[in-house]
């Protein structure tokens, strides 16, 4: 199942989603067969992973289409299945409740991300730019239609010369096509029909090139959150196709008795199919040697299986092992050569790791970012906006996006070179009426004035400066007045002993979830200079503490970690200790 991902086998976001989905269906199948706690816990754990990594709606669509197709095809067994599920849940109430609790709690990160997207505290312009929904996670329909499954399949066709195969090109081993052709006239089994229907339903739902896609986008809410519908090809259609092929092969092998009633016609048909493939390979350009070998081995396999005699080269083994050997050889030989070419074609020229070409920045540098500060910008650069940078940003805070839409990105780099500034005075501004030029010039010249966004109605007259310095003071080192005690990605602790009240600006992008405390008392954190954090610090000795998110949030996340590790550990324990039905261990 994992191998069906083919050339995308090591693509991170595919693996994040594919692995738990595949394991989920494994546990679903075993649970439906044997009703074990380990299977239920396995399903729960896989769902927990799905809900907390990448986009869970891929799984939702795959699972809903599975259920729909299953109900349609296997409606006769539904009653029996439901009764057996109900019996199990009745006997294992507490266990089932705990699994449900674990599942519900794993919704928390996704839900909070969804809420943040709705509040607009982060932006995703590349995906979202013209989406109808206001939630930042939603994707506009144009972005969703950039890629389609049929387009990916046509690319596969255009890469039919497998020596030139590249990453993300779908690859079907030749043996799959041989099986398809051999089973062309055979009766469709129920399982084959189920798999075909399931795959078709996913294709219809996920194909952006179908005219019905805008309808789905408008009326099925989670369709707005997909950007890459073509991922369904890798996550669902390829594995389903693999299962379909396996089922086709199984029907041939299991119907040996029927075939033996008319052996000559079937042998003739097998020979014709293999000769046709040989001829096709000969007429194709640049065919791999392993393709020919795979066709030959396939012919040997089928003739060896259905023949009443054993073919001489394989007579040293029993028929069972010789057939196993042949199947293993067929399914590995061509992929090995194809992946060899994939490695060759995807070899990138070696690049220097960025830290090899620059002197390592000091790890103990809490006061500056980057090696050196840009010189003051000229007027043209200063007033140039970085709108294209804003548009090309995949994910960022709303405040940062706002800044680079209005100002030059060089100004951001120059100003944020210093992590901390101390100002003597502030000016409250309204987002509706921003004087970009004044703010830009002020930041560029390090003027001793911080602009605080506090939903004020307009500009307040500037407080006349009394003994105030013209220039703001960037903090460049620890001193008696300002000492950093702790600095990491999520918190900053500073001890101050200022001679007068100052306004501290921390040049990290402003985000609503940051909290500020002075001497353990909550303090108001302002959005300052368009994109940064700022707060008043009183004179005298104080301890300033800035933290991303609340303690409750941290507690919740640590609790989730605990739940995840506990579920995983308990799952392994159950798998090893639960007695299997047939006396064989679940894992072996």
């Amino acid at each position, binding site marked *: 199942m994992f191998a069906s991902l083919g050339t995308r086998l090591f693509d991170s976001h595919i693996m994040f989603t594919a692995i738990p989905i595949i394991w989920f269906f494994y546990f679903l199948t075993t649970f439906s067969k044997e009703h074990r706690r380990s299977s239920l816990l396995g399903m729960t754990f896989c769902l927990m992973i799905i809900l907390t990594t990448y986009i869970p709606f891929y799984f939702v669509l795959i699972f809903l289409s599975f259920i729909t197709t299953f109900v349609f095809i296997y409606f006769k067994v539904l009653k029996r299945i439901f009764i057996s599920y109900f019996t199990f849940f009745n006997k294992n109430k507490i266990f089932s409740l705990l699994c449900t609790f674990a599942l519900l709690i794993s919704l928390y990160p996704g839900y909070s991300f969804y809420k943040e997207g709705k509040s607009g505290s982060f932006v995703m312009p590349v995906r979202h730019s013209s989406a109808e929904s206001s939630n930042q996670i939603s994707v506009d329909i144009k972005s969703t239609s950039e890629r389609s499954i049929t387009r990916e399949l046509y690319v596969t066709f*255009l*890469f039919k010369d497998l020596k030139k195969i590249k990453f993300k090109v779908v690859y079907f081993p030749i043996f799959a096509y041989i099986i398809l052709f051999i*089973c062309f*006239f055979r*009766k*469709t089994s129920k399982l084959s*029909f189920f798999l075909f229907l399931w795959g078709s339903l996913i294709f219809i739902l996920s194909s952006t*090139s179908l005219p019905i896609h805008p309808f789905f986008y408008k009326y099925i809410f989670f369709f707005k959150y997909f950007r890459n519908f073509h991922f369904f090809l890798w996550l669902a259609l390829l594995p389903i196709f693999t299962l379909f092929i396996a089922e086709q092969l199984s029907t041939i092998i299991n119907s040996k008795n029927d075939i033996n009633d008319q052996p000559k016609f079937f042998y003739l048909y097998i020979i014709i199919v293999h000769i046709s493939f040989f001829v096709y390979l000969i007429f194709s350009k640049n065919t791999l040697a392993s393709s020919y070998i795979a066709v030959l081995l396939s012919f040997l396999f089928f003739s060896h299986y259905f023949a009443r005699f054993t073919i001489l080269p394989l007579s040293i083994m029993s028929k069972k092992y010789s057939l196993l050997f042949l199947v293993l050889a067929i399914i590995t030989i061509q992929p090995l050569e194809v992946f060899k070419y994939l490695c060759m074609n995807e070899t990138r020229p070696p690049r220097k790791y960025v830290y090899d070409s620059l002197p390592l920045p000091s790890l103990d540098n809490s006061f500056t970012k980057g090696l050196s500060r840009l010189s003051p910008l000229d007027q043209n650069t200063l007033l140039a906006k970085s709108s294209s940078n804003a548009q090309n940003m995949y994910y960022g805070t709303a405040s940062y996006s706002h800044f680079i839409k209005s100002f030059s990105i060089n100004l951001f780099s120059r100003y944020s070179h210093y992590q901390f500034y101390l100002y003597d005075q502030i000016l409250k501004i309204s987002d509706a009426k921003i004087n970009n030029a004044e703010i830009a010039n002020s930041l560029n010249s390090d003027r001793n004035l911080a602009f605080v966004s506090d939903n004020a109605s307009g500009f307040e007259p500037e407080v006349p400066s009394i003994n105030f310095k013209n220039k703001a003071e960037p903090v460049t080192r620890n001193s008696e007045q300002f000492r950093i005690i702790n600095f990491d990605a999520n918190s900053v602790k500073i001890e101050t002993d200022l001679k007068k009240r100052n306004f501290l600006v921390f040049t990290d992008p402003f985000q609503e979830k940051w909290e500020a405390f002075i001497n353990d008392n909550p303090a108001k954190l302002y959005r300052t200079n368009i994109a940064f954090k700022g707060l008043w610090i009183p004179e005298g000795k104080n301890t300033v503490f800035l933290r991303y998110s609340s303690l409750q949030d941290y507690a919740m996340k640590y609790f989730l970690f605990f739940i995840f590790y506990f579920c995983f550990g308990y799952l392994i324990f159950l798998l090893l200790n639960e007695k299997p039905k047939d006396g064989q261990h679940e894992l072996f």
Partner: protein
Amino acid sequence: MASMNFSDKIKFALFINVLKRNYILYLALFLFIFIFIDNKTEFNNAKLDTLNRSMLYGNNHLIKDISRLTNEDKVQFQRSLDYYERIIEFMPNKPEAYGMAGFCSYILGNKEKAIGYYKRAIELNPNFFYFYHNLGIIYFNEGSYEKAVWALNKAIQTNPPLSLQFILYSPRIYMPIINLYKNDMNPAFQLKAAYQENYQLLGSSYLKLKKYPDVIQIASSALKAGPNSTSFYNYLLGVAAYELKEYDKALVFLKNSIEENPENADAYYYLGSILHQKGNTEQGNLLIKKSDFIKNTDGYSASKENNFYLKHY
């Protein structure tokens, strides 16, 4: 009645039996895709996708000194050729794709294929300097000087601004290569240098064909244009004058050539021959010995082995 019902039942059963086959599934899927999907648009988009995925990650091998290519570079050239041939397959009216395919084919040793590609490129864009120039170099290197003269003459008749525009308006094929160069090697500088080389090649071709009046015309035109180096053109004029038995003029030109390039062994030889003709045998022999001396030095052998190299256009 009963028998009719029974036969209807049999027919129905047979019909279901026919339908419950795998080929029906495949047919249904095929029809669905054929009817409901705009396959033409999808296929065209797939072609663009294929080209984007076929692009190489690096093009540095294309701007490397051709005399120093390694086996690994040749592998990269083969990949580049595959890429440009794919562009030709999907976009058969892109002259620059033919040009680059010709360049890669020549580097890989397939001269006939390269000539074919350049000829097709010229058909599609007869106003681009480099197609003629590269074709001229190929002909010159293989000794087909008549053909080289045709191509090189066509090259100097092209309009440089149009050639430059063609390069700059090729964002997918030429510009990724141009962007590898540092600022002092922009396309305009390269084009100027190539034009000068073209004149040199043309003069050399006429010389090989012993068309001395044409040699004089080309070298004179080149000198009027103000080349970076006048040594070679003075040499051409000197040799042409010598062959036309205008020995006084030849002396002047050859002396000018040697002044700028004292390692020009052939110029010394011709000077020696002229002095012989004028009866100054002793001086003539000295110059011919000097010529032999220069020819026997290692540096001279290395420089003589330099062929003219194609440009990556």
